[in-house]
């Protein structure tokens, strides 16, 4: 069994909803992340998919302790980082870095590329003493495939793909063990996406990195992930290796999601069964009782409204030697032939 480098246990993040300007009164909460558990193994890529608003970015921020968890734990090498602060937090953060989606807004336009990539050294001078920094930044530029002579340029002088490389160089600066990538290629054009994905694969091997890779493009996630977790409305509904999730999904939401992805092959048009969900995703401030997916699920029964299904290997698949035997949070988990996605 692989070694878990991060263990996430019952993680919860509720954002208070308040009313009133002078005297704020809490009138409810946005249950952005509502009890999520999973492991990240050393050296693997764990893909996280799910539609916008399901809580992916919030999970990412909780893992970095950029948001304070409402409850639950994030264990890094056995230590709960949700409780750390000050120096101890700083020490852990060196090892967990993040790359953001939007290469246009995540880089400070008034800083040079050298300052942006070198900024982490201000907080962790032990990694690169002042005299070495310029050289170190130029090495990083080279590693991500940018000309080291660009060190004095500003972000606006670069294309989207190049800016994403700058973000990645900055993420690498402190030699982290884990990089959390929040939609790192979503804003890029197809031809540039492939370049950045390839770069990330190379870096993973070279620096022995563990990735958590959040994206909504299911075929890209499949390409680079060892395991994949599917989120819906603040919950992890299914998790498994890429074959289990893509070829043998047992949760109705995963099945619907996969069947909705357009396949880049016109021949498949006729013989595809597509599950078209009706309605919208409910509000995370007021999620449905029981299973959160039940308001859009074609299999829902009374039990689904009263009992929240747990994320576990379903009873019927326990001890069965089949790729369908993986964790799925559905009372009626079963395979369904969804021709399709990626």
């Amino acid at each position, binding site marked *: 069994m692989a070694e878990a480098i991060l263990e996430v246990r019952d993680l919860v993040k509720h954002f208070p909803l308040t009313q009133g300007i002078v005297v704020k009164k809490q009138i409810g909460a946005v249950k952005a992340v509502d009890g999520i558990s999973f492991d990240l193994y050393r050296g693997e890529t764990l893909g996280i998919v799910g539609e916008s608003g399901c809580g992916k970015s919030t999970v990412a921020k909780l893992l970095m302790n950029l948001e304070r968890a409402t409850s639950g734990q994030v264990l890094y090498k056995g230590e709960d980082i949700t409780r750390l602060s000050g120096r101890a937090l700083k020490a852990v953060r060196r090892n967990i870095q993040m790359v953001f989606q939007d290469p246009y807004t995540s880089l400070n336009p008034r800083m040079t590329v050298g300052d942006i990539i070198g900024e982490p050294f201000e907080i962790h001078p032990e990694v690169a003493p002042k005299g070495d920094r310029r050289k170190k930044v130029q090495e990083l530029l080279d590693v991500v495939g940018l000309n080291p002579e660009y060190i004095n340029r500003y972000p606006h002088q670069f294309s989207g793909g190049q800016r994403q490389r700058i973000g990645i160089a900055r993420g690498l600066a402190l030699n982290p063990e884990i990089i959390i990538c929040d939609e790192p290629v979503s804003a890029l054009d197809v031809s540039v996406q492939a370049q950045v994905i390839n770069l990330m694969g190379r870096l993973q091997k070279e620096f022995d990195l563990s990735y958590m890779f959040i994206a909504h493009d299911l*075929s890209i996630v499949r390409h680079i992930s060892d395991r994949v977790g599917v989120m819906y409305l603040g919950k992890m509904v299914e998790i498994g290796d890429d074959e289990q999730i893509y070829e043998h999904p047992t949760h109705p939401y995963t099945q619907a999601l996969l069947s909705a992805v357009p*396949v880049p092959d016109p021949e498949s048009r006729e013989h595809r069964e597509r599950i*078209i*969900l*009706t309605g919208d995703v409910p509000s995370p401030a007021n999620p449905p009782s029981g299973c959160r997916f039940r308001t859009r699920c074609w299999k829902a029964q009374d039990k689904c409204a009263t009992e929240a299904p747990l994320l576990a290997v379903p009873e019927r698949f326990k001890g069965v030697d089949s790729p369908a035997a993986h964790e799925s949070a559905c009372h009626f988990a079963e395979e369904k032939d969804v021709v399709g996605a990626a």
Partner: protein
Amino acid sequence: MDTLLDVRDLHVEFRTRDGVAKAVNGVNYSVNAGETLAVLGESGSGKSVTAQAIMGILDSPPGHITQGKIFFQGADLLSLHREARRQVRGAKMAMIFQDALSALNPVLSVGDQLGEMYVVHRGMSRKDARARAVELMDRVRIPAAKERVGDYPHQFSGGMRQRIMIAMAMALEPDLIIADEPTTALDVTVQAQVMELLAELQREMRMGLILITHDLGVVADVADRIAVMYAGRIVETAPVHEIYKAPAHPYTKGLLESIPRLDLKGKELYAIKGLPPSLINIPPGCAFNPRCPMAQEVCRTDVPPLYKVSQTRASACHFWKECLGD
């Protein structure tokens, strides 16, 4: 087949402080009644500007049409008077945008916006127009249309707003719809709902549809024909089934090869090297030549014409035969 729209050698440039951006450089495409033409290309390739020129909503200045003709149902649109042009727009051709929130009027209820179409173009009374608005909302499957007709755009979800924009575009039963990345901002399950609706309405009303997108999956799902754009030109056009089997332009080929495939798992993806050119400084010869694995000397000097590949296909590559062949 009746040609609905025929764009011929269209050129559009933007005169800006930084120089002249040649956004559209000789676009040729046509759409038949009842047909779906997908216009595929990366951002900045001139897809939207071409659509704006067709619709007559080009941002001008700084945009200028410098050459070309646009025929719609036989009439030369660019020589029409403003008023005649306005009549065409809305009644005969309509557009669906990516961002419904900025395309809809935030201070008018959706019922008023939909009804307005009938009041202005059909001279209907407010009351009748309102009833038609509810019908339209039903038609695009907005739940509880009657209760929601007085709501404002921001009160709807992204997918529902997109339906409202589709309803606006369909209101006067136009002959041509241009949908500019209609589902790019939506999640996949919502995208599937919206695309299904659009395809169904198009079939029923036998409209021509120009679907602008950068998603090779969406194209494969719905298009009859495809036109691939690069640096303001159509570089390849073909029936959709043929192009996925055998592209006749190295750019199309590169795009298709860069899609993640199962057998490539864990390996590097094919990546087209480099970046699209600056439109202020398009390379001489074939605009794709600095990125093209097949480029020869002639590609750096001679602009490739749109070569006829077959009755139904064309490619702007000097080496289209070689591209098809291997």
